[in-house]
């Protein structure tokens, strides 16, 4: 009895210690974000004098936001990012899941070859492809500076990983009996796929959507090579260009950085559980 009490007390103490350690670590992790948040409401002069103060001498100001939004052209840039991310992700999911379906259900040589090539291509880093991409699409086809080109490339790059994940999901989670039943009821393969198989893939669709959307939203190098005109910029490119132009106006920079982070942080607030689960599922499967 006494032993039990002692053990319970020890456990409690160790939990309290762990909780304190976690709190300290948590503070370290959010410290950079805190710095941006407290400085975004200060004037440039106040930030320079003391970036650690909660409120500057000149008081609380929200002027940085409208200025940064205007200089950064934030709304059109945000619209570009949303458009490119959504289109790339939706198209990649539709194409990859269909491809995985035909690969899993048929033992044709072409399917095997495509799948092996896709799996093998996952190790190729973007740096190996960037020069030929610019050379082909810029020099030979002349199709750079279009959102559609970037969407097409995003789709092409995300297909391998997405097909691989759908391959696993169809293989283990879609009973072939269901498809045969639909077949007997007179469905074509196309109908069977969209009416029977695709709805069963929902968890994997969510995982792929989260991983791809985050990747496309945050991608910098590929968009910076494809989109050279100001009106086509996405958030990461606009942030980079903005920083280069206004690096001395630190108040504006703070506002721009916060604006760049805000959309995804707000989304995270609502979809936190799905994002954490999706990312874990994606990482563990690959």
């Amino acid at each position, binding site marked *: 009895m006494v032993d039990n009490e002692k053990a319970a007390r020890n456990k409690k103490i160790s939990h309290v210690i762990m909780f304190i350690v976690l709190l300290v*670590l948590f503070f370290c992790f959010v410290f950079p974000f805190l710095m941006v948040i407290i400085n975004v409401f200060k004037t440039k002069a106040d930030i320079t004098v003391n970036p650690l103060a909660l409120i500057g001498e000149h008081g609380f100001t929200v002027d940085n936001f409208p200025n940064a939004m205007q200089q950064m052209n934030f709304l059109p840039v945000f619209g570009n990012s949303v458009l490119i991310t959504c289109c790339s992700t939706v198209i990649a999911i539709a194409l990859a899941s269909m491809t995985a379906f035909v690969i899993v259900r048929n033992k044709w040589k072409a399917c095997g070859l495509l799948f092996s090539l896709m799996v093998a291509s996952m190790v190729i880093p973007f740096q190996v492809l960037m020069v030929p991409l610019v050379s082909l699409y810029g020099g030979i086809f002349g199709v750079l500076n279009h959102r559609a080109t970037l969407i097409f490339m995003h789709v092409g790059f995300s297909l391998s990983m997405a097909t691989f994940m759908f391959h696993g999901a169809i293989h283990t989670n879609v009973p072939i009996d269901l498809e045969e039943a639909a077949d007997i009821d007179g469905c074509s393969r196309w109908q069977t796929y969209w009416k029977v198989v695709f709805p069963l893939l929902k968890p994997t669709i969510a995982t792929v959507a989260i991983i791809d959307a985050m990747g496309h939203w945050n991608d910098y190098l590929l968009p910076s090579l494809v989109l050279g005109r100001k009106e086509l910029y996405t958030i990461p490119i606009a942030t980079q260009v903005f920083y280069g132009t206004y690096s001395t106006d630190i108040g504006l920079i703070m506002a721009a950085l916060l604006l760049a982070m805000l959309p995804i942080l707000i989304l995270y607030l609502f979809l936190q559980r799905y994002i954490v689960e999706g990312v874990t599922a994606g*990482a563990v499967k690959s």
Partner: protein
Amino acid sequence: MRRNTLSYKCQQYAMFAGLSTIAFAAVVIIPFIYGLYLTLTSWDGVSVSKPFVGLANYVSTFQDAAFWQALGRTLIYTVIAVVLVNVVAFFLAYLVTSGVKGQNFFRAGFFTPNLIGGIVLGYVWKFVFNRAFTALGTSLSIGALSTSWLATTNGAMLCLIIVSVWQYAGYMMLIYVAGFMSVSKDLIEAAEVDGCNKAQATMNVTIPLMVSSFVQCLFLTLTRCFMVYDVNLSLTNGEPFGSSIMAAMHVYNQAFTYKNYGTGQAEALVLFLVCAIVGVTQVYVGKKAEVSA
């Protein structure tokens, strides 16, 4: 019967996989092969002609001291960052699976840096290193903090490592958490009945059963650190004096800044091979160490 004809197969393949085959080939396969051809030319990025130069680009790659320096620097950075990321991530995973209050909140918090792109993260940290830490150093009169670390050669590397650890630890933590959860509680209880204390049970039961998590995290951090670009660009931009130019940035500059597309592509290929060899060896060694319960 109908389903065995070649035309049926072609039609089905085209219907389901046609578009993705085209996109995949056009964006990955053809550029990869075309890239191999580009290493044999001296294209300047503008002209239509791509003069064939044989292996000259590979020769200049081997003579490019800056490239090998960048590669060596990347190796050092990768080793330190990979070790630290995984130690921190494992420690975090241990803490957030121990049944402490609010563990889901902590998990979500530690993961937050992964949501944001490297460009934005780099600028945020640049502010922290240049302004916040120096202000802290001045007000507390800590000498080491009162000048920006980004201004010195070793300091810039240290900053890159700190940001990488901060960026990836939360993500790897999630994988280790999944690993911790997959180890059956019965096994740990059995070990404790046999007289193991908590630390011994973790060392001798949990960790050996989590080898696949380690293999995976090491592979992910290795490849990501090796190819670091975004944070490198926004945090240090290679400064001071080009001392923090990582391999990927060197390749980018070689191709797009100095317009040596052929040499840049050859160096990219060398970088890819080094990364692939290291990654595959690591996975191979790791798989051998795996045990099952």
